[in-house]
């Protein structure tokens, strides 16, 4: 049985490669794929007729698996794959961030794939380690690559001194605005330096009637309260690695959120419409519908939404505002690559991920945008930015430099089994303050901390 499964895989993958090379036409590709997909005895016959029986003699090819959106947003990936002969590129069964299948395989001491592109450290890396799914990259990653990583990013991907994630796509929480709307409100086309200015501008938009709403944000904690707290003080993690909701900076951030909500759309706190409420959020729709002026979130969001505008060029991006006497930090995370403990081709995988993460076309596409999308995700390596600084490409927009500057202070959410979940558990409690059900922000945030602790104590 297993042998046949392998045969199917090789057949399918080989068929696709031949299609790409133009050696078989589309119709034959479909026939073969169907036969392979049906898993019927016809495999042998197809193998003979196609003269590809020799494919079975090969070892398993390098088998990476990607989160679907990465492929959708970065159309240059297939070009990188083309340099890796025989690569068996797959889409991961992790729709909605589920890692069940990886864990189930690891329990059997095996893995269908060699490397997974789609791991976000604070979201799932601790769980992947705990379940013995992944292993550190250290034996395979070249020292110069390790040294090339922006220090905060290397920290983000490291647990107990070992690099469990090879960073790939960097998302930073920053600010953005619709210059058509700000202009109509008579505002300067410059980035608000401070939150006070951000708020004042947002109010000006509503008062001038330039748009129904002044500003918005994504209400999920790691995209709102965490970066806003960091902009005042990023030293807000407890000794066990949890976000310290009772910290004064968090209280300030929560009060700021409420002030922004006063000039925002009423559905701002609602859950999103895809991926378990995490994506397709109301802020995105409001910004896409050109009904709101200012928007702070990871850059992918405003860039993606602005493509729905009458004139996407009216989008402006900048660093996150800060509190008047704040640290000026923000939150970032990378979506990177995990090495399956029970996978194969580990050296090859390292070679592949290196090629992938340094591919200049991917970065150019990501920053400038292509027909397939405009992710705005940035590279994790110092040398890439240094190269751009030295020879600025004519396509380089201004925000990349601004964000690179902020990366020196920016900080990822500390890795923890509850790294993401603490914000999910806490959300209803701090929203009690935002909705006016609880008048004291400190009490609301204490409730958050209590709820998180209660959930952790269960285990």
């Amino acid at each position, binding site marked *: *049985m*297993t042998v*046949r*499964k392998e045969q*199917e*895989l090789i057949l*399918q993958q080989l068929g*696709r490669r031949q299609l790409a090379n133009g050696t078989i036409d589309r119709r034959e590709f*479909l026939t073969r*794929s*169907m036969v*392979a*997909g*049906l*898993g*019927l005895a016809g495999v042998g016959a197809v193998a003979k007729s196609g003269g590809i029986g020799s494919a079975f003699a090969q070892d398993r090819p390098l088998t990476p*698996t990607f*989160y*679907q*959106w*990465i*492929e*959708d*947003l970065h159309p240059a990936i297939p070009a990188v794959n083309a340099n890796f002969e025989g690569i068996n590129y*797959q*889409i991961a*069964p992790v*729709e*909605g961030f589920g890692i*069940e*299948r990886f864990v*189930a395989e690891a329990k*059997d001491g095996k893995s*269908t*794939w060699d490397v997974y592109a789609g791991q976000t450290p604070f979201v799932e890396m601790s769980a992947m380690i705990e379940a013995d799914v992944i292993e550190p990259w250290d034996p395979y990653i070249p020292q110069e690559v390790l040294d090339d990583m922006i220090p905060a990013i290397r920290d983000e991907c490291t647990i107990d001194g070992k690099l469990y994630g090879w960073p790939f796509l960097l998302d930073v929480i920053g600010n953005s605005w619709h210059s058509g709307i700000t202009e109509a409100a008579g505002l300067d086309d410059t980035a608000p330096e401070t939150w006070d200015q951000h708020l004042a501008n947002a109010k000006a938009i509503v008062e001038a009637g330039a748009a129904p709403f002044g500003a918005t944000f994504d209400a999920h904690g790691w995209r709102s309260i965490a970066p806003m707290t960091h902009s005042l003080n990023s030293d807000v993690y407890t000794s066990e690695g949890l976000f310290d909701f009772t910290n004064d900076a968090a209280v300030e951030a929560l009060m700021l959120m409420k002030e922004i909500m006063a000039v925002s759309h009423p559905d701002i706190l609602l859950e999103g419409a*895809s*991926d378990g409420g995490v*994506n*397709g959020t109301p802020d995105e*729709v409001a910004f*896409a*519908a*050109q009904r709101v002026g200012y928007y702070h979130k990871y850059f*992918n969001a405003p860039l*993606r939404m602005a*493509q*729905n*505008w*009458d004139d996407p060029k009216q989008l402006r991006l900048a660093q996150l505002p800060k509190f008047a006497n704040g640290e000026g930090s923000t939150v970032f995370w990378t979506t990177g690559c995990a090495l399956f403990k029970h996978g194969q081709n580990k050296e090859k995988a390292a070679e592949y991920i290196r090629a992938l993460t340094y591919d200049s076309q991917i970065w150019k596409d990501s920053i400038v945008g292509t027909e*397939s*999308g405009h*992710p705005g995700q940035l590279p994790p390596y110092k040398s890439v930015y240094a190269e751009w600084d030295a020879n600025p490409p004519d396509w380089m927009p201004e925000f990349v430099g601004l964000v690179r500057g902020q990366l020196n202070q920016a900080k990822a959410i500390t890795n923890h089994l509850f790294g993401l979940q603490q914000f999910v558990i806490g959300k209803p409690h701090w929203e009690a303050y935002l909705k006016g059900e609880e008048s004291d922000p400190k009490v609301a945030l204490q409730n958050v901390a209590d709820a998180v602790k209660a959930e952790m104590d269960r285990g």
Partner: protein
Amino acid sequence: MTDAAITLQGTGAREAVSQDPGWFQRNRSAIVRHAVINLFNLIIILPLVWVGMMSIKSRPDSMRGDFWPRKFDFTHYAYVFEKIDTLPINLFNSIYVTFGTVAITSVCAVLAGYALVHLRPRGGAFIIATLLVSLYFPVRVVSIISIYEIQDNLGLINSTSGLILPYVTLQLAISVLIMRSMFQLVPHEMFEAAKIDGAGPWKSLWMVGVPMVRNGLVVIFIVNFVTAWGEFLLCSTLTNDQVARTMPVVLAGAQGGLGQWSWPALAAVYVLVVTPGLIAFTFAQKLFFKGLAEGVTKG
């Protein structure tokens, strides 16, 4: 016989008394009936028409509530074909898996329903009770990991055919129960008579039983069709390769994550996916209801 005629017959006893009630009066109940049906039809169709419009709107117009766009954009369909080059295969997979599931489940359900009612096996009551209990178990959520293990042991991970096995089980219990209640309506004497005529249990099932439970079969076809056609969780967990997956799973990739497609492109997918289903169903409809009608006239 036309609708109006039935109505006339139905209400004839009293209305015949009133003299020449006029066209509207005579057809009142038919008019109301069609109006109500069409109201529901409208409720079903309007959202879909809205989606159809969405698929040809320009992106800025897709983010406005207006039904009629300021600017049309017909390029979204090309985008869909370009992005999901495996769409025909996925569609084929869906059809294949769905029909496999419907066929196997129907056979299982007919055999089991017949045996439970007319062959009265020992332990039948226990089997029925277990089937009933299983309906109330959220097996799906908790069992995904056991099912993964089973499929893995059978070597059926990433096999499209392999999906049929867990799919059959999704509605098996309800299908058997439906068949059981259908067979309960068939008088036991009919099978006794067949037995006396020398027919074994298989033959009497085929000759006597199946024609009698046609209506139930239609229901089972539809129940299983709908379930297998739309199934998402099992397929996304048990297959890896885009060419091995069914259509819903491939489509799900377009609507989630950071790569979420623009709304008009999603709408174009919609139209492309719903249309073949619709055409297939128009034909299947005819067969189903022909079967139904025959079942009625002969029964």
